[in-house]
């Protein structure tokens, strides 16, 4: 008895693949020749000519085999593909540069020492970023303590209670997500530091970050709460629970991992904020364990200071600090991903 293997006529055959590879090879040769023969030079010229010749060859082949409509269709898809490749390239470049430049400045005392006894101009082996890490840690904790309750309650109001003002509040939350970080910074400065006896400290540094964190957490939490099936809420109320009881004992526990994701995304959003800190943090080179008194530092602030100094050593310190900062952001980002993926299951 013979069995028939299912054919998949829509899949490219070996001949098609061969044609495509041949087309690409021809395009490579053409771009090489064109760049050699004309005054154009450099990577940009290679990439440009290669893209144009590859597209022309592809579209031409389609035109011959399947007609004009198919050729235009192929052109559109290759342009869309090129667009997303162009979007992708900066990310690769940013990650590659940060890692390759940052690792040069890593050394053992980096995480155990502050800049108290060394300046930005000293050789790389001296001083460290402990003060900045401590500061960033405080910023994250204080900003979360302030903004998480506000955001989660707002999200609960918007999705569970759906009061009369829900539409208006939604509008305001969206407006808040557009507040530029520098405005949040000078607002705290104008409200608390200008003409008062307060000086920049950990807490004043964290306040603008809390403002920036609220809309991110609220909107993510809202999306998460909307995913909770209505059956659960109805079941709770059928058992005689009040709305408040239903929310606390059923909805929030069911959405727990999603709410954690929301908070972590908020943290990732603010961990690298620089502009507001320039006005509100004070700026210290020592480890400061007291967030309520005395100037504080933070990783983005440290990076900023190194860049402003501008000497090779200072810039190297900035690259290393931004590598550490990027690792922290990536860490939070992957935890958020992990939790949200669990939620999907």
């Amino acid at each position, binding site marked *: 008895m013979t069995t028939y293997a299912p054919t998949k006529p829509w899949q490219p055959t070996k001949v098609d693949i061969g044609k495509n590879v041949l087309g690409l090879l021809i395009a490579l040769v053409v771009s090489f020749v064109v760049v050699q023969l004309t005054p154009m030079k*450099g990577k*940009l010229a290679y990439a440009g000519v290669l893209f144009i010749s590859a597209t022309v060859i592809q579209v031409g082949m389609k035109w011959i085999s399947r007609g004009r*409509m198919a050729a*235009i*269709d192929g052109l*559109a*898809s290759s*342009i*869309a*593909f*090129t*667009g*997303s490749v162009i*979007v*992708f390239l*900066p*990310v690769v*470049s940013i990650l590659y*540069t940060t890692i390759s430049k940052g690792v040069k400045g890593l050394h053992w005392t980096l995480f155990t020492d502050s800049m108290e006894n060394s300046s930005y101009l000293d050789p790389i082996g001296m001083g460290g970023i402990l003060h900045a890490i401590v500061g960033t840690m405080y910023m994250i904790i204080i900003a979360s303590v302030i903004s998480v*309750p*506000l955001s989660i*309650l*707002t999200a609960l*109001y*918007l999705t569970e209670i759906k009061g009369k*003002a829900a539409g208006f*509040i939604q*509008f305001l939350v*969206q*407006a808040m997500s*557009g*507040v*530029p*970080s*520098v*405005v949040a910074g*000078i*607002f705290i*400065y*104008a*409200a608390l530091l*200008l003409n008062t006896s307060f000086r920049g400290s950990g807490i004043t540094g964290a306040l603008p970050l809390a403002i920036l964190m*609220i*809309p991110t957490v*609220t909107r993510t939490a809202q999306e998460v709460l909307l995913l909770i099936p209505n059956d659960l809420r109805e079941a709770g109320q059928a058992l005689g629970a009040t709305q408040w009881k239903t929310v606390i004992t059923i909805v929030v526990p069911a959405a727990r991992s999603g709410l954690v994701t929301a908070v972590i995304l908020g943290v*990732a*959003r603010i*961990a*690298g*904020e*620089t*502009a507001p800190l320039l006005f509100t943090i004070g700026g210290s080179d020592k480890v400061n364990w007291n967030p309520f008194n005395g100037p504080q530092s933070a990783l*983005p602030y440290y*990076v900023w200071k190194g*860049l402003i100094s501008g000497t090779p050593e200072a810039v190297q310190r900035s690259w290393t600090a931004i590598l550490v*900062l*990027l690792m922290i*952001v*990536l860490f939070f*980002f992957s935890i958020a991903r992990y939790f949200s993926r669990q939620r999907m299951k």
Partner: protein
Amino acid sequence: MSFSSLAILTLIGSFLMLRGFQTFQSEGLHFITGFEWTSTVNDGVETSTFGLGSMLIGTLLISGTALVIGVPLSVLTALYLNFYAPMQIRKFMVTILDLMAAFPSILYGLWGYFILMPMAEYWAKLLYKYLGWIPAFSVPQPAFTRSPFVAGLVLAIMIIPIITSVSREVFSQTPLDRIQAAYALGATKWKMIKTVVLPFGSGGVVGGAMLGLGRAMGETVAVYMVLNIAFSANLKVLYGVGGNVASMIVSRWGESTLLESKALLAAGFVLFMMTLAVNFLANFIVKRAIKSGK
């Protein structure tokens, strides 16, 4: 608790207004239209003019450049991800775009200054060489470093994630029956996109672009790093002089007197109002675009 957002927005507006009031009073309308920003102290007497005009022009020029570069790329990416990409590539690219949105802005600034700027300078020279006869691409002197063009490029990269994600959301709301109707009439994929998806999603793309514009107008650190901030009304994209309200606030802050820092707070108020207006409009457009699909 949920009215905290109202309270915060009101507080921001009123405090900046209050602290900047002196400036608004002394400068009047000139604060928006004037092009000069000077503050000098002579024998304890402070003479000053505060005009935000050149910075406002610079803000619009840079964010406009960012939109011109960023919107087409975002729309292409959104189309590719929604209609062409295989599942794995789509998931991967969405992660990458989320990651781009999470990168600290100072990282963009650092990368923009050290890596992108040398390349962008070369591109700017090419543009000038071949398209210099267009007024926007002409330059008074051959100074291409730290130009609005470079700042616009960096901002474009920063706003691509937000425009892409809004566009993707709107495109995915396209009614399936219309898509299938187009295919049933024999349309190719591109024909389907052109006749069904793009007309349907254009409103959402406009809204997404405006959200990106709001973000671009308020960007501070990245612009500060790559832009040569100077108080002159420059409309030449490639010429290495420009401005942006947000980064001007940072650059003037360090050496400002009390009078000037009040003027800077007033500038912050103007920026706050501008971004608020743009965001209101953007959210309104996006909401309407998404609703029309339901």
